[in-house]
């Protein structure tokens, strides 16, 4: 039996790595993938808590998170295709119309 807090610490590490990738990467597709990594880390915490409390609600929430992530990926990748078409670049620093 693996202690629950091992899973939670792994979840925090993965979430932190997702934040690092979000801050340091320039490619918008990679930034989008780091958001998926953070969602995965949260899912791991949900399942770990679900196991710790011996209740299944956490796993149902994980299913909902996966559905929302799928919808987000569909819309987000559509937006990425639009950015590439309008700017001819995937670099987030080149999408700066709102920047002062």
């Amino acid at each position, binding site marked *: *039996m*693996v*202690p*629950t*807090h091992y*899973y*939670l*610490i*792994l979840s*925090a*590490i*993965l*979430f*932190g*790595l997702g*934040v*690092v*990738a979000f*801050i*340091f*990467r*320039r*490619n918008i*597709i*990679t930034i989008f*993938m*780091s958001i998926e*990594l953070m969602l*995965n880390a949260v*899912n791991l*915490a949900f*399942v*770990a808590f*679900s*196991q*710790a*409390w*011996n209740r*299944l*609600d956490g*796993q*149902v929430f994980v299913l*909902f998170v*996966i*559905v*929302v*992530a*799928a*919808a987000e*990926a*569909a*819309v987000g*990748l*559509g937006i*990425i*295709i*639009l950015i590439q078409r309008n700017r001819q670049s*995937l*670099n987030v*620093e080149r999408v700066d119309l709102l920047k002062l």
Partner: protein
Amino acid sequence: MNTPLIIFFVLAFTAILGALSLILQRHPIHSALSLIVVMVALAGLYLLMGAEFVAAVQIIVYGGAIMVLFVFVIMLLNAGVEERTNFSKLAGWAGLPLAVALMGVLAAAVARSTDRVQAVTQAGATAPTKALSVLLFQEFVYPFELTSFLILVAILGAIVLAQREKI
């Protein structure tokens, strides 16, 4: 050291290596493949926790559908190695320390939150898929139906965003 603990450390190490590779790879397609490694490792961890259905959904929906969508878009846009632009000063100086601090605070907070729970945890606390489906289709049936609307709206949004000329 018992077997589940060894399996946990192998899978956790794989997941962290995959996440590091996601950060360090310069090419988006390599980052996408690293993310698939992380997702498969997490599916193994779900199996270890006795959440078989979530593990299956993780492989099929995340590792299959969503990542295929990512790889498809990377190939469609012919995304190459990301170009280096002048880095944000704030992100360069404060980004990494703050991210490490966030990681530490999160790990400390969530690890302490289970102190009370440890007594409740019992060996063999498995999650049968039948009980999960009963919960999903009875208690959570309205959120479940709402997600179908969400998917529908997302499909429409993706079509409207990605079409080349107005209908």
